[in-house]
């Protein structure tokens, strides 16, 4: 064969293959199919900090050399929040030792969180005899910045401690003493030195800084300037992570996008949403909230759709584990945001582990396990036809 022809064939062949790179490479999932990714409108500098936080959250794995444990639950943030979604029984937390608003009586015995794993040569923690406990499935991280930016006034406007409107729903905030390192939000409401907390299953964490510093400390055994007590010795020790890394992770959590609803115009989903409102679910799972001011422009004064009121509600004896946090009672749980619910399976190994401890294996089962203030809605759900139930579930799966 002619030499020039061979060279030409090679050049054409390779060029074609290289041009085809884009077509043959794995494609980017649609934005509404995944939970991770930054919210729109971040500046270049904010994007850069988001990336730093992303690496710290998803790629940094702790070892004994970098401070892991010696008792711990997980070796990295990403272990518990795969794809920034909900957790799995493998990473479910156990907390113990508090039965009322007077505080945790087992702090001197390792409370509030059980570190159920230990590095080689050490033994994991055990729940002290007599301590009540509850299991917490790790929540999804998405849209947390929006929740963080809701004003106290807006939360208080949704509260109805005495059930003045007589609808059987009496949401109340969890009032806590904020840690010294927390920065109070503008116009925070002070209630005898306590403030409205909003993160966590019991809404016992004031902000994402407290949530993050606690998670490093209680989940991974990593001490920081913010939470400096070693969970094993109970002593204040040197920080095992830099302030900047904690701040980067907080920024990452604040700027993760909100989940995007799928198939909003599907008639079944529209009907399901109406049924969701009609049977009273929306009374607690508020579909629309708004943010106040924020130093992150993309988060300021935004309307969003989390399906939560960030308040505590009595969920009845069936969900009362006898353990609590802050000023919440043992049967009270913060309304969990429902956004991202339909993508839960993608972070839970293809299955559903819903409610605070993952006991519900389907959306329908989760609804049926609602009691207390939600019992009326549960009853109304049971009165729906099978077709109506499916529409309502289809709506929830679209979130």
């Amino acid at each position, binding site marked *: 064969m002619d030499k020039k022809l061979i060279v030409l064939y090679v050049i054409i062949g390779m060029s074609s293959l290289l041009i085809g790179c884009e077509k043959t*490479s794995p494609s980017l999932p649609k934005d509404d199919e995944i939970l991770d990714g930054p919210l729109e409108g971040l500046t270049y500098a904010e994007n850069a900090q988001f990336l730093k936080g992303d690496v710290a959250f998803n790629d940094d794995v702790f070892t004994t050399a970098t401070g892991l444990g010696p008792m711990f639950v997980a*070796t990295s943030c990403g272990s518990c929040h795969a794809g920034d979604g909900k957790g799995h029984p493998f990473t479910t937390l156990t907390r113990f030792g508090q039965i009322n608003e007077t505080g945790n009586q087992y702090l001197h015995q390792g409370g509030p969180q059980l570190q159920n794993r*230990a590095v080689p040569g050490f033994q994991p923690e055990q729940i002290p005899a007599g301590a009540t406990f509850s299991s917490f499935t790790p929540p999804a991280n998405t849209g947390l910045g929006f929740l963080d930016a809701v004003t106290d006034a807006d939360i208080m406007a949704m509260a109805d401690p005495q059930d003045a409107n007589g609808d059987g729903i009496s949401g109340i905030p969890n009032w806590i003493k904020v840690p010294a390192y927390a920065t109070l939000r503008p116009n925070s409401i002070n209630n005898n030195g306590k403030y409205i907390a909003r993160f966590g299953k019991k809404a016992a964490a004031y902000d994402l800084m407290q949530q993050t510093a606690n998670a490093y400390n209680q989940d991974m055994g990593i001490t920081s300037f913010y939470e400096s007590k070693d969970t094993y010795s109970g002593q204040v020790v040197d920080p095992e992570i830099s302030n900047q890394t904690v701040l980067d992770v907080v920024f990452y959590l604040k700027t993760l996008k909100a989940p995007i609803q799928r198939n909003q115009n599907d008639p079944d989903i529209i009907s399901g949403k109406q049924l969701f409102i009609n049977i009273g679910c929306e009374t607690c799972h508020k579909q629309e909230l708004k943010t106040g001011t924020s130093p992150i422009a993309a988060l300021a004064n935004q309307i969003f759709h989390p399906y939560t009121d960030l308040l505590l509600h009595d969920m009845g004896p069936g969900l009362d584990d006898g353990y609590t946090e802050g000023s919440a009672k043992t049967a009270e749980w913060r309304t969990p945001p429902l956004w991202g619910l339909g993508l839960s399976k993608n972070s839970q190994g*293809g299955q559903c582990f819903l409610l605070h401890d993952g006991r519900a294996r389907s959306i329908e089962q989760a609804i049926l396990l609602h009691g207390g203030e939600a019992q009326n809605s549960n009853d109304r759900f049971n009165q729906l036809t099978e077709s109506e139930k499916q529409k309502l579930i289809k709506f929830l799966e679209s979130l």
Partner: protein
Amino acid sequence: MNLRLFTFISFTFLLTTSGFAQIDSSLLKRQAQDTSKLTMNMDAVYNRPFLSFGKLPIAFGGYVEANYQHLTTDGITEGSSFQMRRFTLFAASTVMKRVKFLTEIEFEDGAKEINIEFAAIDFELNPLVNFRGGIIMNPIGSFNQNHDGPKWEFVDRPVSATQMLPATWSNVGFGVYGKKFTGDWVLAYEGYLTNGFDNQIIENTKNKTFLPASKLNQERFEESFNGVPLMTGKAAIRHKKVGELGISYMGGVYNKFEEDGLTLDKRRHVDVFALDFNSVLPKLNTHLNGEFSWVWVDVPGSYTQQFGRKQKGGFLDIVQPVLRRPILDFEKSVINVAARLEYVDWNVGRFNENNQNIADDYWGISGAISWRPSAQSVIRFNYLYNWQQDILGNPPAKTGGFQFGISSYF
């Protein structure tokens, strides 16, 4: 330390080569390889092209690997990258009759990593009993012994061989090896005691049981991590017309169970078992080369299941020559098409919490077109696609893309 080693080796190499630069290059003699014998994977370390210089009693050689790649994971790409993966130098010498020395020094990713992969003296006590000492390559599987870039049609090394097994895995130690020829058959064995692994295999930033993590411990060339030798043994059989089958084992204590006379933990074992084979199908002249391995690690029960107690995985390369003819004046040109199938289960087991399967699986498939102007050089074009599932079994991360590379002995 690495920089000094690099400078010293470079200087020595340049001195020995440039010292003869004014001499007619025909004095550089390529050492004839003995092709009459059945060579096996265990022979790979010596079965390489070497150049000798006049009467200098040392022969030199080496190989180089460079490539371009464009990979994408779930729609996100790092774009184009050019990589200088390896530059490896060999030096070999027959010290005296039946005593020989060989060393292999590798510079990876520029000079990011510099490793003495092999530096051993062999004493032939008897054809069946050769004594070897120094830095040796533990004979687990086949790839660890037979890993030179120009021998393969793929830019990437097999994941199961380099990330589940720790190829290239070298340690200081001693051992014996030998071969027995019987007609068309050859039987071979190897057995070594060396320094070994350390705690990093279950305490690492890969967040999984990862034997190669112990390669970060450069002190293993100076002292054992725990004082217990790592045992590696291999038996292989080859038939001239059928191919080679190898069975190998590597095992020992990996953790520091004692220090200054104080007990820190119980002795915890790592055990590896591997099967390897290679063959050429008659008539079709299709080359098959594969390896499958199992890893067992005694992970403390109270530690996280993120780190697997058992792993398994392997690869199969299928290479089909499709054209043998002079191309662009390269008289012995061969064009090959090839495929590689790979699989690794990083964590074989079930979750304590709900008894469901722990995933953490890797699947890979690659295609290749390669042109070998000679047996010692290859220009290769690869397309790869792989799936990596996390420990929970969530939708896998998908990576795909193209690689173009060259590799040649020199």
